[in-house]
């Protein structure tokens, strides 16, 4: 079995894992990051894309509020390409707690969160889609962040500093001896090969799957899995982030993301992070609740739902209560008599950098390395890894070149053949690190499949192109296409009324009525494809 060696092995390619890879790389420490699927395929890829100002937490957790404020400021300064600095509004509707509304400004002040009261008339001038029944409004410094660009840029920077990563590499065992992890065995789902890694220290940044990883080492982390579903609207409904002015609850945030808006979320406890998927019932619940602040949400066209899993660390097993109040858990498994093993989980996208910093501090302390964190000062370089996720960029590129031979393969999002070729070439140069399917990998790195057709047309066209290029052989391309469509379906099926129902009818007429694809090969098992986490939130225009 092939053996790789590294200083720090990071398990998990979400915001925390990639952020940690960059942090450690900046400190001169070589890392290998392994991810069982693809970058951001867990909660980091299935959230609101909200960069919290902190105002949401002023009542419940002022420390978290302050963290959000500080981290938001740092990211706006150092990673502007990932952020759409939209600003935000908190609005209340009749029936919301008048006490909460009255206390809001002073609670914000207590955590030094900028917050200004504005008149309801002014709020509706700023955001005409708001209900004419709102009774209070405050302006705050919320923003939208593209979590894909964020993680890809972090990873790209880490790689440029000498670290490495492997996607589609699933940890199968942690071998313990002499009070430490001696080696880690992994399975490469692309090549089907097993390999092992020897590292001085192993960091478990597997998010909702951190408990499963820890269990392989015989360590126990008491995690609660909270599945949250969100809805994507076809158009961007507001300029700003809109929050409901009440104690944090379900369905009270609408976040702009490029050309769309994201509405949610719900909170449903599940027993297995792999079983998170959005449901019809949740989609209805979100709309029924959120339309009070924006009536347009009742009639707007939704193009998709998706769900992510928040890993909530239960206090019972944590030796340090401070960790729980801070929203994330950094666990030194010295407590389980495994000296070179650390887990970082919980937390929020907004505070991912801080989580990485604290983790890296602990890693350095354990390795006896004296190196300071640099991510508070060093700007995050913009990479090209995530550029084709940006709405409109592909269309602009296509128009800009005016190459008559370059066809648009995805008409909803105007993704041309040359862009697909560019992505294929990029993936190709990554060798075996590509995703479990060429089509899925293209979907993760571009807007293909994100438009109203949800892959119905572009899936077929891109598949044909993959055959033309020799990227897929035999019935593999059609099998990948079925997988791709099955994955899109998870987020498509909860919102099938109105126009999406017509779209789904046409899609089935094409795939089943016309091409009998339901009868060819095996039905792909979407449940076995992991949590719902496709790249849903559009990348933002911050690079302009």
């Amino acid at each position, binding site marked *: 079995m092939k053996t790789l060696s590294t200083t720090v092995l990071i398990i998990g390619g979400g915001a925390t894992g990639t952020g940690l890879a960059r942090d450690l790389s900046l400190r001169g420490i070589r890392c290998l990051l392994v991810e069982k699927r693809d970058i951001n395929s867990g909660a980091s890829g299935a959230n609101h894309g909200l960069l919290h100002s902190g105002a949401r937490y002023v009542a419940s957790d002022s420390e978290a509020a302050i963290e959000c404020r500080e981290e938001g400021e740092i990211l706006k300064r150092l990673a502007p390409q990932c952020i759409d600095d939209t600003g935000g509004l908190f609005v209340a509707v009749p029936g919301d707690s008048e006490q909460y509304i009255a206390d809001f400004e002073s609670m914000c002040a207590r955590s030094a969160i900028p917050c200004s009261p504005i008149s309801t008339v002014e709020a509706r001038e700023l955001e005409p889609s708001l209900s004419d029944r709102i009774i209070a409004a405050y302006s705050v410094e919320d923003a939208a962040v593209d979590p894909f660009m964020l993680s890809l840029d972090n990873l790209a920077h880490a790689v440029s500093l000498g670290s490495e990563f492997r996607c589609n590499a699933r940890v199968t065992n942690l071998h313990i001896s002499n009070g430490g992890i001696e080696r880690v065995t992994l399975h490469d789902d692309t090549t089907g090969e097993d390999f092992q890694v020897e590292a001085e220290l192993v960091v478990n940044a597997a998010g909702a799957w951190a408990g499963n990883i820890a269990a392989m080492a015989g360590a126990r982390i008491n995690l609660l899995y909270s599945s949250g579903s969100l809805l994507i609207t076809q158009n961007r409904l507001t300029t700003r982030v809109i929050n409901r002015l009440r104690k944090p609850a379900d369905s009270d945030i609408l976040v702009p993301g490029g050309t769309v808006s994201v509405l949610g979320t719900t909170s449903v406890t599940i027993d297995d992070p792999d079983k998170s998927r959005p449901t019809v019932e949740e989609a209805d619940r979100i709309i029924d609740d959120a339309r009070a602040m924006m009536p347009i949400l009742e009639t707007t066209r939704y193009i998709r739902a998706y769900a992510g899993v928040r890993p909530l660390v239960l206090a019972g097993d944590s030796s340090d209560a401070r960790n729980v109040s801070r929203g994330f858990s950094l666990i030194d498994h010295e407590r389980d008599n495994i000296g070179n093993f650390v887990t970082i989980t919980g937390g929020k996208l907004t505070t991912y950098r801080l989580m990485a910093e604290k983790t890296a501090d602990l890693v350095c302390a354990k390795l006896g390395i004296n190196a300071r964190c640099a991510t508070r000062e060093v700007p995050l370089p913009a990479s090209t890894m995530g550029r084709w996720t940006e709405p409109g960029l592909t269309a602009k590129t296509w128009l800009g070149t005016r190459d008559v031979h370059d066809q648009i393969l995805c008409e909803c999002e105007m993704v041309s053949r040359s862009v697909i070729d560019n992505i294929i070439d990029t993936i190709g140069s990554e060798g075996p690190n590509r995703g479990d399917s060429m089509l899925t990998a293209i979907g993760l790195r571009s807007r293909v499949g994100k438009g109203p057709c949800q892959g119905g047309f572009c899936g077929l066209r891109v598949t044909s192109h993959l055959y033309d290029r020799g990227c897929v052989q035999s019935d593999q391309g*059609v099998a990948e296409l079925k997988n791709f469509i099955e994955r899109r379906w998870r987020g498509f099926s909860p919102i099938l009324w109105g126009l999406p129902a017509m779209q789904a009818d046409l899609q089935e007429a094409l795939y089943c009525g016309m091409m*009998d694809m339901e009868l060819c090969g095996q039905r792909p098992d979407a449940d076995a494809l992991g949590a719902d986490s496709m790249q849903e939130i559009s990348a933002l225009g911050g690079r302009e």
Partner: protein
Amino acid sequence: MNRYDTIYDVMVIGAGFAGMAATLFAAERGLKVAQTGATGGIDFSTGFLDLMAVHPVAEGRYWDSPWDAIDAVIAEHPGHPYARLGKDRIRTAMNDFTSFLQSQKLEYMGHEDRNTPILTPAGTVKRTYRIPRTAWKGTEALRDKAPTLIVDFNGLKGFSGRQIVEMQHKEWPRLKAVRVDFPGSFGELYPEHMAWTLSSPDRCKELADSIAEHAKDVEYIGFPAVLGLNDPVRTVTLLEELTGKHVFEIPTLPPSITGPRLRATFDRGLAPKGVCTFSQKMVLEARRDEDGLFSFLIGVPGDARTVRAKNAILASGRFFGKGLRAERTGVVEPVFGIPVTQPEQRADWHHPHFFDKQGHAINMSGIEVNDSQQPLDAAGKVLHDNLYAAGAIQAHHDWMRMKCGAGIAIATAYRAVEVITEKNGE
């Protein structure tokens, strides 16, 4: 009298397969017919006419004989539209339909008592009942696994000869593909434009020349369905003469030419039969007047006019055709408000897996009709004695999985017209 003042014998609502079939059959019986409807399912069609091929859907069992499959499906789904029709009538309806198409130079081929396997643009093989003559040689090539060349074109997206070869290579080793430039064109290509181009014999000659080298060792040549618009058989025959090979077409993804060819054929053939087509107009409102006649408000909001008819055939399709409307709280029939049989709640509409062989429960939803194809109200009573419904809007079938779309559309339309004609004669 202008076309808005005429009182029609039948108003056909819908311009898909069922609407076209109803209009055709009614016109052939001498009824004064008006037809409305926007671009419908026909425009997305492969041109194949499915009768019945898969049952039970959950087992994915293909049937050679569509007639045996119809017996089997009726036995298990007594509510299936075929159960109200009888095989003889279904056979007659299909034959009348294809005879009309043949009279308009769109000839269909097939076996009387069995389905024929044929290639799809994905490279899969499906079984269908009637196949355009221009595609027929492809069924022979597939059957014999004959040495065959698939030609595709730079600039025509969504059609890959290589994909078809890759999908079939285990079974069909002597299948190969070549990609060439389309004669006289560059950049992105669209089937309709290509079909026009290939109506020119000179362009066909150029095409034949460009593939001659690759076609030396084959017996058959397959093309994407772009070989001519109004008289594709002529183009296919010319290419056969030019290449000395058997030539066939494979449908393309929408936008394709196989659907528009059908529509154009109807447009050509129905006008001389006196049909009044309110094309691209939708029925906004339907009213049954005291004299028993229907008044339809057709057009677009703000620019709509009334049309009156003695009978109506609702052939408006399902969701894509707008015959059924899926609302967040349930499925409704928007024109007449006919009750729709459907799963109790939206969560039950779809299976969690798109490709699950069970299919989706919503597909069995639709309106209930009696043996005369008259829609029924919630109590099971005939809603209006001069209202009929044809095609996919009827409940208790899954045409996409059972492969019975054209058959249901044509045969239910046939039956509706038959009943109207009988009543007219009384």
